C-alpha cells in the first residue's frame, strides 16, 4: 500500500470490532471522506492492513460554529475571512467504517473478517485508485457487506460498484462492462431470494 496517500488523522477510536469501527477526528471539510470511500488502517502492529468502506459520516455538534452562525453573514464583505476560515477549519466528525477484508505483508487481499480490529491509530488512509482497482478485482469484497448488519448495505454496494466501475471506464465502454458483469453476477448469486433488493441495487449503477 502506498503510505503517501491521503491520510486522515484519527483523534480517538470510539468503537471497534472486527466487523466495523468508528473513529472521531477533526479534519477540514474538504478532506472529509465520502460514503463508499475505500480506506485502510494498519492492524497487528503494522504487519497487516484492514480494508474497509466508509458507510457513515457524522458531523458532531460544533458549539463554536453554532455560536458563529448567528452573526456571520455570507454577503457581508467584512466576514469573508471568517467564512473562509470556517471552511478550512477542522470540524469534529465521526467516521464509521465497515471491514471488507485485509491484507498481510504479502499484499494479497483476503476477503473476510480481519484477524484484529484497529487499536489506537495514528491515521487511516484513503486508498488510491490503483489500490481500489486491486481490491475490487475480485468481487468477494461484497460478501462481508451482505453479512454485516447496521450498515446501509444496499446503498453502499451500489455506490461502491458505481465508483469503482468509473476507474475502468465511462458507461458503455468494454472495460467497464468487463469489470461490472462479474461483480453483478456475484451479487445476483447471493441475492437469488431477494430479486427486488437486487433490482434496487442494479438501478443505481449505470452500465
Amino acid at each position: 500500500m502506498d503510505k503517501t496517500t491521503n491520510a486522515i488523522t484519527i483523534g480517538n477510536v470510539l468503537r471497534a470490532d472486527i466487523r466495523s469501527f468508528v473513529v472521531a477526528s477533526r479534519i477540514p471539510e474538504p478532506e472529509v471522506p465520502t460514503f463508499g470511500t475505500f480506506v485502510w488502517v494498519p492492524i497487528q502492529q503494522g504487519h497487516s492492513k484492514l480494508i474497509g468502506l466508509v458507510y457513515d459520516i457524522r458531523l458532531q455538534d460544533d458549539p463554536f460554529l453554532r455560536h458563529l452562525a448567528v452573526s456571520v453573514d455570507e454577503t457581508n464583505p467584512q466576514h469573508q475571512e471568517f467564512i473562509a476560515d470556517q471552511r478550512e477549519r477542522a470540524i469534529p466528525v465521526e467516521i464509521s467504517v465497515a471491514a471488507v477484508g485485509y491484507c498481510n505483508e504479502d499484499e494479497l487481499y483476503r476477503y473476510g473478517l480481519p484477524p484484529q480490529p484497529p487499536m489506537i491509530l495514528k491515521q487511516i488512509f484513503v486508498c488510491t485508485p490503483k489500490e481500489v482497482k486491486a481490491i475490487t478485482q475480485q468481487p468477494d469484497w461484497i460478501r462481508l457487506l451482505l453479512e454485516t448488519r447496521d450498515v446501509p448495505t444496499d446503498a453502499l454496494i451500489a455506490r461502491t460498484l458505481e465508483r469503482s466501475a468509473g476507474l475502468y471506464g465511462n458507461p458503455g465502454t468494454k472495460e467497464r462492462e468487463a469489470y461490472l458483469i462479474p461483480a453483478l453476477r456475484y451479487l445476483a448469486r447471493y441475492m437469488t431470494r431477494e430479486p427486488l433488493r437486487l433490482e434496487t441495487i442494479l438501478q443505481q449503477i449505470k452500465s
Partner: protein
Amino acid sequence: MHTSAIMGDMLHLEQLKDSVEALSQKVVKSHQQRTLELETALRWLEEVPDSNTLREQVKAAPDLAESAAIPATDVPLNQRITQTNAVPKETAVVAVDGSQIAPDRHAAVLYYLIQVGGLLFRYNSEAPLPFAKANLYHEDTDLFDQEGLVITWQLGLRRTVAEIVYLAELTKIAHKVAHPSPIIALTDGPLLWTYRNQRDEEKQAFATYMEALTTMQKEGGMPAGFTERPGGNPLISLLALSKKLGPSKTAEQERELRTLTDHDLMARFLKPGQRSAWLQRSSEMNTQHAHHGHRIWFCYINVGEPGYPVIARLETPEWAAQQTTWCETLHAVLVQQAEVLHGNPYVLARAHELALVTNKDKAALDIALQQRLFEQGIESHTSEKARQKSYLSWQR
C-alpha cells in the same frame, strides 16, 4: 437516605443549602453596595481633573502609587474613544493560546505536555492560517525541581513563556508573508509579567519573555494582552486618591469604594466599541519591564453589544501605544473580531481551539505511550488510586 444519595450524585447539595443562601445574600448585598458606589465613581470620573494634575497628585502620595493607575497621556481620563473606521485592508493579526497536560505521578508514565496554537488572520478575503505545536517533556530536568519534587507552579510559567515565544514566531511569519503595519499580536490574558521574579526560574523566564517582546518590536508587531472581565481597581484607586487630595473635601469624598471594580465602572461608562484613555501602573513589575524597554500601558475597551457590555483590559507596550495609527488599528480589529462572537475576539477563540488538549486527547496519548512500551516488553499502568478515580469519572 437523601434523594441525591439514591440518585448517586457525588455532591451533597442538601448539605450546602445554608451556604448557598448565605452566598446569594452576600452577592445581593454586594450588588446593592456596588450600585451606590457606581454612581459616586461615575460622578468622580466626570469631574476628574486633567491628566497633569492627576500625575502630580499621584506623585504627592507615593504610598498609594502602586495601587493607583497613572494617566499615560494627556487625553482626559473621562474621554470615551470611539473607532468607526473599518480595519484597513491587508492588516495582519496573529493570536496564540496554550494548553497543557500536567505531570501526574499516578499516571503510567511521568511526563508533561505544552501545546500552543495560533492563527494568522489577514484582512485579505483569504482563509487565515492555523498553527499548532506540541512539546512533550520527559527529562528529569524538566519534571523535577531542585528539591527533587515534581514541578507544579513551574508549568504555568513555562506555558506563559511558550505562548509569548510562539507569538513572536508567528509575528515573524506574518512579517515574511506580508509587511503590514502593524502586525497585531494578541494574547489571551495580561501582557504584564505576572510573576514576582524571586526564583531563578522566574528570572530566566522573564528574560526570555522580554526577548520575545523585543523580537515582536523588531518585526513590526504590536503585542497586546486581552483580558476579559479584568479584576482590580487601579482606575478607581486613582479617582479616590484624586478626590482625597482634591481642593475641597465632602463626606462623599471620605467614602471608600470598597466593592467597585474598574470593570463595573467601565461597563457603565463605555458604550460598545469605545475604549478608555491609556493608563499605566508604577508597579515594581512595570519598572522591570521599563528596564527592558517594554513598559506596559493599559486601557479598557467595551467589545460587547448595547445592553450587554463586555469589558476587557488591553495591555500593550508603551512604544506601541504611542503610535496613534497602530492604536486605531488595534481598536478597530478588536471591535470587529469580537462582533462575530458576541464579545470574544475570533482570533483568540480560534487560537484557543487550536491549542486545546482535551481529556480525550490525554487519554489517547497515554494509551499510545503504554502501547509503545508494551511493544517493547514493558508493562506500565496507572496507580490503583488513579484507576479507582477513573471508575468514578465516567459519570462526568
